[in-house]
């Protein structure tokens, strides 16, 4: 394997066409007309891939300047986020902080300040890394994606969007327009915990928990994890199992139940064995933190 130091990362060692469309429609037309065109937003993943020649597109279509894709709208039943909204904008947005504090927490732990100022929520999802920081919170919230194309648009649940590591169900000619997060007006506690070498490194394991209680009984719980399977995942069987249980019972059961639903691997950042053990501990920690927040500062989600 080549060491990182042997590759000159100063220049991109290939060329391509570069387009800055002025509208989403124009961007879609470009994608349709050019074979092997790639959408670029923040570029924090793609530019690195270009430097390492992991991708060799004929053209880049830059959507980062499209105001049509840069918005956060808080409606009655959902919060809608434009795909070109940067991670820093998410972290600072009033509606996100108020209605989706779980996502805000993940946005704050995302990369460095410099990276958060470039990276977008759409890019984070479309790049489809199993470690994508925005994915577990959005999976926990049952987020949906609106995929636009010249022939109209379709809505895909985020849970069905990821097809594997670095793979999505996006078809040629489609652009992720927005992320819609349903808001149910149910009081909930939340927690996003990420285990990484340094806080801005990619996650070895990440866990997002949304928790609603009825007295001390678990009324609704969502547990989503990153970096422990080919895609970010929900631990739905565990969720079903512990719903209706007392919180103490739920915390005792959840780690082992979640462990059965994940399939971590060995890679440069960690080992399968470590990830499995740590995931169990972090599930417990995240549930406890969500529990405390439910009583202290619960929000309606």
């Amino acid at each position, binding site marked *: 394997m080549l060491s990182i130091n042997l590759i000159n990362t*100063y220049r991109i060692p290939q060329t391509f066409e570069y387009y800055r469309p002025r509208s989403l429609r124009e961007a879609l037309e470009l994608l349709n007309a050019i074979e092997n065109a790639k959408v670029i937003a923040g570029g924090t993943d793609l*530019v690195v891939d270009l430097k390492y020649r992991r991708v060799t597109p004929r053209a*880049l279509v830059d959507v980062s*300047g499209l105001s049509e894709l840069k918005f956060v709208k808080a409606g009655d039943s959902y919060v809608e986020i434009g795909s070109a909204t940067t991670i820093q904008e998410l972290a600072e947005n009033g509606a996100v902080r108020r209605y989706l504090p779980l996502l805000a927490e993940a946005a704050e732990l995302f990369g460095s300040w410099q990276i958060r*100022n470039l990276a977008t929520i759409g890019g984070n999802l479309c790049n489809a890394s199993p470690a994508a920081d925005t994915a577990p919170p959005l999976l926990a919230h049952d987020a949906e994606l609106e995929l636009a194309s010249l022939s109209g648009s379709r809505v895909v649940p985020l849970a069905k969007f990821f097809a594997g590591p670095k793979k999505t169900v996006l078809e040629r000619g489609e652009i992720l327009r927005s992320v819609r997060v349903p808001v149910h007006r149910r009081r909930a506690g939340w927690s996003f915990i990420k285990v990484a070498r340094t806080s801005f490194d990619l996650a070895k394991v990440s866990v997002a928990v949304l928790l609603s209680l009825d007295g001390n009984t678990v009324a609704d719980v969502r547990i989503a994890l990153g970096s422990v399977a080919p895609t970010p995942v929900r631990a739905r069987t565990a969720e079903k199992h512990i719903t209706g249980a007392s919180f103490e019972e739920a915390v005792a059961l959840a780690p082992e139940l979640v462990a059965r639903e994940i399939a971590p691997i060995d890679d440069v950042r960690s080992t399968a064995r470590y990830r499995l053990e740590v995931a169990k501990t972090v599930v417990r920690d995240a549930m406890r933190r969500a529990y405390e927040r439910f009583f202290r500062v619960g929000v309606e989600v």
Partner: protein
Amino acid sequence: MRVRFKLNGTLVEVEVEPHETLLNVLRDGLKIKSVKYGCGVGECGACTVILDGRPVTSCLVMAAKVDGSEVLTPDYIARTELGKRVVDAMLDEGAIQCGYCSPGFLTTIYAAILKGIRDPEAMKRALLGNLCRCTGYVNIMKAVKRLLESL
């Protein structure tokens, strides 16, 4: 491709290749050598510039993207009133060893102060994306504290 943007307050127009990054254009085309090439993949922060008011790693920004934007580079920042105070604090505390990371640190600290960050812990978080391979962090944080106290 022709790209027009405001560089340190002055409108510039440059011819760029579609595969060039902002870092390439600043260093090679515009001869702004205060912007350093470190890792080239957004990890180290040596190439930090301020793009439309926000610090970014210029090694990951496509040059064509900055058309119509405003860019501030470390050499300019060091000449501003606030930038001078950041540099002085770094010099006073010996926060510079080999110096290669210093322009990036200066830029991020400057941007953080303009953003209203006054707490050393918050500043530490803002600086996570700037690496010092001499590991001179203790003195860098001393400089940060001295500076924040003086504001």
